[in-house]
């Protein structure tokens, strides 16, 4: 079982949009996939039309596998299940802080589902918290949407810095450009800069598109409603690239062998 997180310190960068389309693409690809909505806001639950669950308590989330499993719901698509959001998630940090091995809890929990799923996609809330540290430890790949602006450039360095300090594997950190607008000069400059500075940047770029915004209305993955739209093709491409990377075929890695990180 592989775990892929969609994460960013910054809010509103396209984590949820990416998570649901990646999860859908993987399920279509034949993987038994679970998307976990870890954000108490419940955006990905909303897209899949699943009401947030009220039963699960924060303290049982990490301790009772059976309770968790009971909250999993089938999506409308084959092989794709969802663990909906829960308001109690707001208490995650407080909860985790009081537990032993508080940074490895999520990893243990998710791996207990490994005979049911081939892939778990995590839709994460922003900020760096104990939950996000759990996410870093659990995930094989942490996919980071980056809007090509100077501000995002700064938050991404922050994240890199955090990884360095905490001795986390920076190899699993995989940024890609999200909401790209070709017309904007700043977007183009930042993209060039960042690609030069960080060799592991994914090749796929998701363009800014109203089609993505419209997902809020259709409440379905873009890959279902408009599979041939440019943004949908970009998500598909992103999924392929992640698959390749996890198989160890990575151009970035080959080129960046002496990458000073």
């Amino acid at each position, binding site marked *: 079982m592989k775990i892929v997180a969609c994460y960013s310190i910054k809010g509103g960068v396209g984590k949820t949009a990416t998570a649901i389309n990646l999860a859908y693409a993987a399920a279509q690809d034949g993987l038994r996939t679970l998307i976990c909505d870890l954000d108490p806001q419940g955006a990905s639950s909303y897209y*899949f*039309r*699943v009401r947030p669950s009220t039963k699960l308590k924060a303290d049982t989330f990490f301790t009772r596998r059976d309770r968790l499993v009971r909250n*999993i*719901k*089938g999506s*409308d698509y084959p092989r794709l299940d969802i663990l909906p959001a829960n308001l109690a998630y707001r208490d995650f940090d407080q909860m985790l802080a009081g537990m032993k091995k508080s940074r490895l809890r999520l990893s243990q929990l998710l791996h207990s589902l490994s005979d049911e799923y081939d892939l778990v996609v995590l839709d994460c809330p922003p900020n760096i918290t104990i939950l996000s540290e759990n996410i870093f430890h659990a995930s094989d790949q942490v996919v980071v949407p980056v809007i090509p602006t100077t501000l995002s450039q700064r938050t991404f360095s922050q994240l890199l810095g955090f990884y360095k300090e905490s001795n986390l594997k920076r190899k699993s950190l995989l940024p890609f450009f999200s909401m790209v607008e070709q017309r904007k000069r700043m977007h183009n400059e930042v993209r060039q800069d960042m690609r030069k500075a960080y060799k592991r940047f994914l090749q796929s770029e998701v363009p800014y598109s109203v089609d993505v915004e419209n997902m809020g209305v259709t409440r379905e993955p873009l890959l279902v409603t408009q599979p041939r739209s440019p943004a949908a093709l970009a998500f598909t491409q992103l999924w392929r690239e992640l698959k390749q990377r996890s198989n160890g075929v990575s151009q970035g890695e080959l080129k960046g062998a002496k990458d000073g990180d």
Partner: protein
Amino acid sequence: MDHHRTWLADSVNLEEEARGDLLQPFCLQLEQKAHRRYQLLDTFDWSIWQQGEILLYNQTQGEGRSYELWQRGDFFSGTPSQVVPHSGQKHRFWWEFTSLAGSGLQKQLKRSCKLRALLELHPFELDQLRYAVKNEDQKSVAWLEQITLHGKSENQGVRRVLRLVPVRGYERELKKLQKKIQQAGFPLYDGALLEEHLIDSEKFPAQYQSKPSIVITEEDPVREVVLRYMRSLLSVSRENEAGIIDDLDIEFLHDYRVSLRRIRSIISLVSKIFSVEETRWLKKEFAAIGKKTNLLRDLDVYLLEQENYRALVPPVLSGGVDELFESLTLDRKRELSRVRRWLRSAGYRKRLEYMQQRLTGTAETLGTGVRSEQPVLQVASLEISKKFHKIGKLGNKIDSSTSDEEVHDLRLECKKLRYLLEFFGGLFAKKSLNKAVSVLKKLQDNLGRFNDLSVQQESLERFLQDHQQQQSTLSAAVGGLISALSREQREERMRVTENFALFYSPENRQLYAQMVDAGLVNKEVGKSASKGEQA
């Protein structure tokens, strides 16, 4: 199928009826509409079906043709266990499934079909409507499927069910839906859709049985039991005629002949139940009918051996083996048309109908003998006991100096014992019977191979004589074959003593003695088997 989530819906069609309020407040949204055309493939004796599987040829337009193997229980509710894309001429035998994708299927079909051809037993069509059952958020909480099976025409053998397929995490909704469907008056369904459709269409799975099983009780008069057997056997023979004429596979002829042979042996094994003249007439008639197909069967058997023969001779002579088989293939073709003509002839038909009529067996038609009215258990026990004892005597005489003739005699007697156990097996305890049969079978297999090898040698020698003027590769190949076969035959011969010892062991004698004990009037006969050992 999931029994508590499948309902019979013969008279409803979700496509037409007001399905709007069927599941209120949930609503239905059509997600998929599929129409499939299938051909059911199986052997004449439904051997795939009997293995618990279904082989279908999917010939749906626009879907790319394919073979599908299903577990019977999964049909429609699951997915096929094998799918093998296929275009062009349909395969008739398991060994024709040579594509890479087909190797798994080939293995499974080899096990069930053996020498049998795949026949197109029944074409049918499947309509599937799949609805999403949506809640107020337009989220699917279950799937509702309507599955309709029918024959070639829309209204032939129609079977329709509704099936609820759960979505994980919506158990509460599922219960509600089940209740609603229940309340709408649909009866729960736990049948086998395809099987029922087949029966509606007058196709009866696995109806043909090469060994008829008839129910007998100990007290039944033996004459009546034997007649019942003969009638069933004769109709088995007749069921095979069409397959022989169409040359579908060689098992039709085999079953045809085996049934006739069973009839002949039951007549001679159970004597004195018809009048003397009638018994003689029956024997003569059935022998004459059986003989007509001897040559064709022999040729079938040789052609089967093709691969083995090839392995027996050195590669330089393989050209000769090819010639041999070309010639045999021609012979078979000629012989087949002769047999066909005969089976189609009015003379044959009339003769067989007459036999069938005689076998209805009122006292007037076949007369009676002194044992006609004896209880079947009594006669069976006596005959089995006698035969067992006789084999013991014959076998005890066999050592390395005994002639092949005597070994053949032993084989024939064993075969007779086997028939007796087959005919009357139903009278004895299953466990003892199975044990008796398995020991006997081991000896018979050994003797059978021994016999096959000598028959093959003889016929090759005959072939050599008939083709004396032909080139030397052919004769060299045939000569090589004969010596290889004779070597194998000697090896088989050496195993006979050992297998006989098992058959006539004190343990096996005890088994037979117990088996026949209840039915023997004169207990001395049963014991004579054990005396034989001291002699």
